[in-house]
């Protein structure tokens, strides 16, 4: 994937052909399931996801803003925090894009997301303070991962340990790329950054240009054991088991019933591996 430069290859086809073929568009579906540990305690699912769209005229696929968030288990109001975070983030990012339309270049998108990050943190703190008081901000602790689909650009802003995998071309395991993930090794994974942390300024922001992107899979850390692995150096990478590729492939089908995503999250093989809330928000480029 490149950042701001046109590749020296022919880009993927977009727009209507002379024969009036339907243009490419993003198909987006999400699912979230309460983790077993929360079921036992009678607690809410602390994961949330949201999606907003900007419908435009023109031949390119519409712009979409996607977000997932994971409330901190130790924070008593984190379920509210995660819901507030995804709703607020998608709205603020969309409202930044709306006045001038889709970003033209990856640097433009990156700059937009960096500005949005500051606004999201400030506004989140303002709202929580108004609701519960400044001394209780930490009770709403949550991670947040935002993706902007502005084909052929994709940008992201992430605070915490959510992750994003992109598919390029015709799919298959070799065409899955881990675009972003919180990278702490498991033994030291005790320092998750939250939207309420003093270190929330240490968000990861980036945007890339790639006309070959055909799918995006984003999730909270609950699905890391199922979809990612650690290489010998301890770095995260896409797992060899084709979970992500299969999910994106299913979504390629117009007739796919999205309840299948919930079925996946409820599989015993998944709940054996992770007791955490699990969430996925996926998008495929299709006609």
């Amino acid at each position, binding site marked *: 994937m490149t950042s701001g430069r046109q590749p020296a290859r022919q880009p993927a086809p977009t727009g209507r052909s002379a024969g009036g073929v339907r243009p490419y568009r993003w198909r987006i579906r999400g699912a979230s399931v309460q983790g077993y540990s929360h079921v036992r305690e009678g607690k809410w699912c602390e994961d949330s996801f949201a999606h907003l769209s900007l419908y435009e005229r023109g031949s390119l696929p519409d712009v979409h803003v996607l977000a997932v968030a994971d409330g901190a288990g130790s924070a008593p109001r984190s379920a509210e925090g995660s819901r507030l975070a995804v709703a607020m983030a998608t709205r603020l990012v969309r409202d930044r894009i709306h006045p001038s339309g889709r970003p033209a270049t990856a640097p433009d998108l990156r700059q937009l997301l960096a500005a949005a990050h500051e606004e999201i943190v400030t506004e989140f703190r303002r709202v929580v303070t108004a609701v519960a008081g400044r001394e209780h901000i930490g009770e709403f602790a949550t991670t947040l991962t935002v993706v902007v689909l502005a084909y052929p650009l994709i940008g992201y802003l992430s605070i915490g340990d959510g992750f994003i995998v992109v598919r390029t071309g015709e799919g298959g395991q070799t065409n899955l790329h881990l675009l972003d993930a919180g990278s702490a090794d498991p*033994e030291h994974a005790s320092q998750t950054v939250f939207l309420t942390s003093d270190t929330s300024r240490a968000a990861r922001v980036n945007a890339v240009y790639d006309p070959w992107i055909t799918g995006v899979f984003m999730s909270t850390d609950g699905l890391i054991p199922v979809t990612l692995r650690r290489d010998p150096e301890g770095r995260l990478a896409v797992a060899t088991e084709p979970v992500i590729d299969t999910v994106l492939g299913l979504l390629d089908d117009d007739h796919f019933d999205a309840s299948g995503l919930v079925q996946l999250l409820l599989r015993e093989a998944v709940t054996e591996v992770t007791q955490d809330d699990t969430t996925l928000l996926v998008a495929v480029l299709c006609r």
Partner: protein
Amino acid sequence: MAPRNSPDRATDRRQPRDVIGNIPIPRPSHRVLVVLCMDTSYSMRGEAIDKLNDALASWARSMHAGEKMAATTEFALITFGAGGVRKWRGDESFDPRSDRTPFVPAHSFRPPKLSADGVTPLVEAIRLSISVIEARKRQLAQEKVTWKRPLVWLVTDGRPTDDEGKPASDWHPLAGEIRGLEAAQKLALFAIGIPPIDDLGQETLRAFAPERNMVYGRFDFSDILLQLDRSVEDPNYKLRGYQPRQA
């Protein structure tokens, strides 16, 4: 799954639910090691040890009967009191000097029926907890299995004593060692006090776990185990009811 424009994709007419149900899911590649370090000294006789046994049995049943802990969690039980310091696997207790690991997968955890007697060799029990964790890490490393930060849950109703039941003073260096291990993210110790723990006993717990200590006013072992479950899921877990001391 075949690539999007592949003829194989066009002929792959399996129902999506069949496909979802058959996706290979990775086996767990990391473990959470949890040591339950339980006081079974003489002062635990009667209601306390009965309630502890009941809570452990109920908790283990919840892990067996389809409500299971993640396959990645392993538990070890170490007791201090009756029989001195003991390691346990199921009903069997064995010499702490044995190389045998007391860790078992969560769904296989079967607590013994504990009895209360003897003094409170708490320091030796904590040192053994640390030792069994390090031994298990070495085994996992050989199997190329990674682990999250291990947890030790210490539950006691009194202060540490020596072999003769007199208050021990050798716990001070241990508290410093634990601080060092926690600072290096090698361990997280939760220190729980139950009645009739006194002020000096509580001071010991605060020294061992400045931010993860708590004293219960009654024998609520079920709640203790519930909080243990939460700590397995969340390395940053703060004990419900933890009260930071005023400076």
